[in-house]
């Protein structure tokens, strides 16, 4: 059956058949797209290696959950729902777009299996999809142009505003939808007018609306709109394809790959160079990222995949307190660098230093590696590895802030950042015994035990934090554990040493600790320090199983080995409202959200509230280890902001499970003038306070 209107393949322009253009447009479009993509891939070919071709099952699962399932999107409700609408619509409409290209040559073409019933169902589906995308784009444009959510703003130092690009692309998408719907509606109206049987258009769709509007139009106008609809769609489609790799909409193409090749191991840090083992590190001429080409290809793909949505920076605690760091612009600046130095036309320019170029030193040191940005990113862009690599580059050049040089030198000489003597590492044990606490075995004195309590530097040496060590010892003893500490044989675990880019120092600390741990013969390790917990699990190799004290406590309570009683009287928790602050290295980096809460909830009568930012959205206290020495440029302290959040939640006691969190939060209580109103305590200290030893 011939349709009433001449299909685009058969119309002629100045005697040239439409099919000619239907071939020309895709051929030129695809050629241009291929050319642009080749240019975009050029820096990735020169980039450092990155081994991401393993664990196919995990990667496919990630693509299904994060890309196809858009799992992270609803974390920002409005924008997320809009994105899911547009994304789902794109997936559905992609089939239509492919068949439309071929229809330009062969008017009766159907995708395989789409000729009969499924075709009808699909047509209804795609008309609703197009309408859904249209509505979503309209709302998105309204948000961009009128509502202007703060996270889209571009601070002056980071360049120009991106609203224009966003709205232009929304316009392109709407053009695609309108032209396709017009093409469809005009064909239907033409057939109705000619008395031919037609497929009913789904009600309340764009095509249905156009059908109503055009029902009285003349054949000439219908034919014109029909042909124009087709070719406008065709042109816009291929223009859009070539436009994608020129800006933030590159993510439309790259996101599926970026998610597939995502970092799968939380809390871990990439090796200095993939393919170079630790004992061959000395042979490397240069460490870390100094110029753009030192990034791995995956990190470049990250830059291309950034959709500029601003969620990372919205969650970033450094950004929140006015430090000169906004993760979003780590990506955007690098992407712009790549576009500028690997231009579509003209020679490539490589080798410019990044620090002092697009990044500043303070920007890179400002990151606490809390991981809030990575947790949020819908397309799984990673930042911590880049920060570490950039720092490795700076350390290699001797470019380290003066405030960090002393603690690093002390770590090298004494194995702790304070420069305290090794033999004093176990002094807190003596103090504990004097206070009537349990005797703690010390392995450097020849003792042995089943369990090794890895104390780490801050708990060993800091007057206040030694209380966490004492409480941990009391809890372990109360639960009947046979345990001991390494004493002077223990060195700093090096979690921050590694994340500050001092890889060789980290390797030394790791080797010394590993040897001491093996020598001790311990069968398992427990620590109350999430930073030690993280690095022993993720950065060390072949150690006995490592547990955080919150896991141990949760189990010991469940098994009845530790019994808890209610606090009595003011100052002992009566009338207090508790909130739990998730330490980054326990929560986000190790997914331990429940165990500490179970411990808290096991204390009879304890009233607990959650802060708005909790669990995987926890707000970093300011960072641990070497961060206690770093002097950042900032308006406010993160710890102070966190204390204010707890006050807002109505809490009077902040419980945490990390020595550094305790340091920073106690400081925050002082600097925010909340002394007397809010107190902070470590989980294991709180447990000790509530231990029912009599039973």
């Amino acid at each position, binding site marked *: 059956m011939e349709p009433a209107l001449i299909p685009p393949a058969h119309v002629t322009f100045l005697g040239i058949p439409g099919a000619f253009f239907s071939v020309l447009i895709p051929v030129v479009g695809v050629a241009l797209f291929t050319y642009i993509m080749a240019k975009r891939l050029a820096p990735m070919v020169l980039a450092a290696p990155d081994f991401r071709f393993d664990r196919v099952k995990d990667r496919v699962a990630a693509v299904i959950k994060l890309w196809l399932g858009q799992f992270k999107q609803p974390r920002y409700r409005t924008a997320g729902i809009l994105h899911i609408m547009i994304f789902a619509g794109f997936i559905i409409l992609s089939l239509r777009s492919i068949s439309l290209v071929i229809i330009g040559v062969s008017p009766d073409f159907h995708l395989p299996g789409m000729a009969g019933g499924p075709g009808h169902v699909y047509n209804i589906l795609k008309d609703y999809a197009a309408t859904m995308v249209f509505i979503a784009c309209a709302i998105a444009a309204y948000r961009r142009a009128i509502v202007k959510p703060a996270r889209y703003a571009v601070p002056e130092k980071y360049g120009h505003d991106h609203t224009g690009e966003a709205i232009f692309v929304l316009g392109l998408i709407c053009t695609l939808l309108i032209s396709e719907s017009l093409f469809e509606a005009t064909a239907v109206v033409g057939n109705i007018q000619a008395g031919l049987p037609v497929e009913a258009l789904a009600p309340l769709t764009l095509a249905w609306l156009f059908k109503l509007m055009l029902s009285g139009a003349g054949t000439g106008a219908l034919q014109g709109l029909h042909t124009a609809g087709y070719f406008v769609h065709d042109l816009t489609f291929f223009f859009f394809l070539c436009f994608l790799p020129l800006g933030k909409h590159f993510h439309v193409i790259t996101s599926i790959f970026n998610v597939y090749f995502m970092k799968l191991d939380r809390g871990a840090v990439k090796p200095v160079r993939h393919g170079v083992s630790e004992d061959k590190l000395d042979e490397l001429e240069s460490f870390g990222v100094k110029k753009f080409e030192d990034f791995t290809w995956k990190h470049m793909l990250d830059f291309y995949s950034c959709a500029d949505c601003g969620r990372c920076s919205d969650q970033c605690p450094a950004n929140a307190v006015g430090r000169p760091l906004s993760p979003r612009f780590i990506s955007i600046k690098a992407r712009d660098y790549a576009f500028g130095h690997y231009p579509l036309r003209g020679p490539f320019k490589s080798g410019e230093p990044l620090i002092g170029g697009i990044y500043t030193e303070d920007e890179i040191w400002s990151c606490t590696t809390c991981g809030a940005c990575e947790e949020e990113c819908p397309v799984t862009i990673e930042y911590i590895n880049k920060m570490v690599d950039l720092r490795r580059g700076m350390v290699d050049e*001797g*470019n380290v802030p003066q405030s960090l040089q002393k603690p*690093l030198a002390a770590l*090298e*000489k004494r194995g702790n950042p304070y*420069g305290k*003597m090794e033999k004093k590492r176990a002094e807190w044990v003596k103090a504990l015994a004097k206070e009537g606490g349990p005797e703690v075995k010390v392995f450097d004195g020849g003792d042995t035990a089943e369990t090794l309590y890895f104390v780490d530097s801050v708990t060993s040496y800091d*007057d206040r934090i030694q209380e966490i060590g004492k409480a941990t010892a009391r809890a372990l003893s109360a639960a009947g554990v046979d345990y001991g500490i390494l004493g002077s044989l223990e060195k700093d675990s090096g979690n921050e040493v590694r994340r500050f880019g001092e890889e*060789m*120092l980290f390797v030394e600390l790791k080797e010394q600790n590993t040897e001491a741990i093996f020598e001790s013969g311990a069968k398992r390790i427990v620590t109350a320090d999430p930073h030690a917990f993280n690095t022993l699990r993720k950065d060390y190799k072949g150690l006995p199983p490592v547990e955080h004290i919150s896991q141990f406590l949760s189990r010991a309570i469940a098994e009845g080995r530790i019994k808890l009683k209610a606090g009595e009287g003011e100052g002992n928790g009566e009338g207090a409202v508790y909130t739990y602050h998730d330490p980054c290295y326990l929560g986000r980096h190790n997914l331990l959200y429940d165990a500490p809460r179970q411990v808290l909830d096991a204390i009879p009568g304890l009233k607990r509230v959650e802060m708005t930012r909790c669990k995987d959205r926890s707000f970093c206290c300011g960072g641990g280890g070497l961060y206690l020495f770093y002097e950042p440029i900032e308006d406010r302290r993160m710890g102070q902001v966190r204390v204010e959040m707890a006050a807002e939640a109505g809490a009077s006691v902040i419980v945490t499970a990390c020595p550094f969190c305790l340091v920073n939060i106690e400081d925050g209580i002082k600097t925010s003038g909340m002394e007397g109103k809010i107190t902070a305590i470590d989980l294991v200290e709180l447990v000790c306070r509530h231990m029912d030893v009599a039973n």
Partner: protein
Amino acid sequence: MEILVCVKRVPDTSENEIEINSSGSDIQRDDLVYSVNEWDNYAVEEAIQIRDNVGGSVTVVTVGDDDAEEVLRREMAMGADKGVLLKDDAFEGSDGRGVAAIIKGEVEKGNYDLILTGAQADDGAGQVGGMLAAMLDMPFASLVNRIDVVDDKKINVGREIAGGNQEMNEMSLPCVLSIQTGINEPRYVGIRGIRKVASVEIPVKGAADLGVDAAVIGAANARVKRLDYFVPPAGEGAEMLEGGVDEIIEKLIDMLKSKGGIK
């Protein structure tokens, strides 16, 4: 410009608890960790920056035993081109004049335009730089916090004077300067940097190589002799606060309040 920087290996004051031994002859040295004297580190950084700007080379020299080699390597990892260890049993126990005389020997063997020392050493008396200049009959400026190279014959050097003001002086080369901390921000040297220079040969020179006058070196010829180390008794009005950090702070605040220091 050929630059010689004199450096010293000292017990690191930030990583040791300095205590006097029971006989009062020395500090307790078991369990000490050593590093480059802080002032010297600034001097080396300054020398490297000058070399990077105007060309030439930087040599670091120290008077000491085999252990002193580690500080030379550290400074070479920083960027110094050469290291020289001045070592001889005859050097042991030299006073400031003796050390200056030893270094003078090395200066005269070379062709140096600029000689830098730290303003003082953590365990020293701040005298070698000035004595060295006098022995060499070269111009000397102490406590330098700025160096501007004018040409290969002249430099301008700055010193901080009272009230945060800056003084500038013109000096002709060759000359000796003692360098104050804060003149620059010394770069970081990690384990990796030290390993890179681990196999570089460091020449060792003794009294004979340097032609040092034997009459001024060694403990026997020292004109300044150490008698004793002791902790001075608390004077009137002086009080040592004792207890934990929090306790001490509390006591201090109470005292400041009661004496009207703070309100």
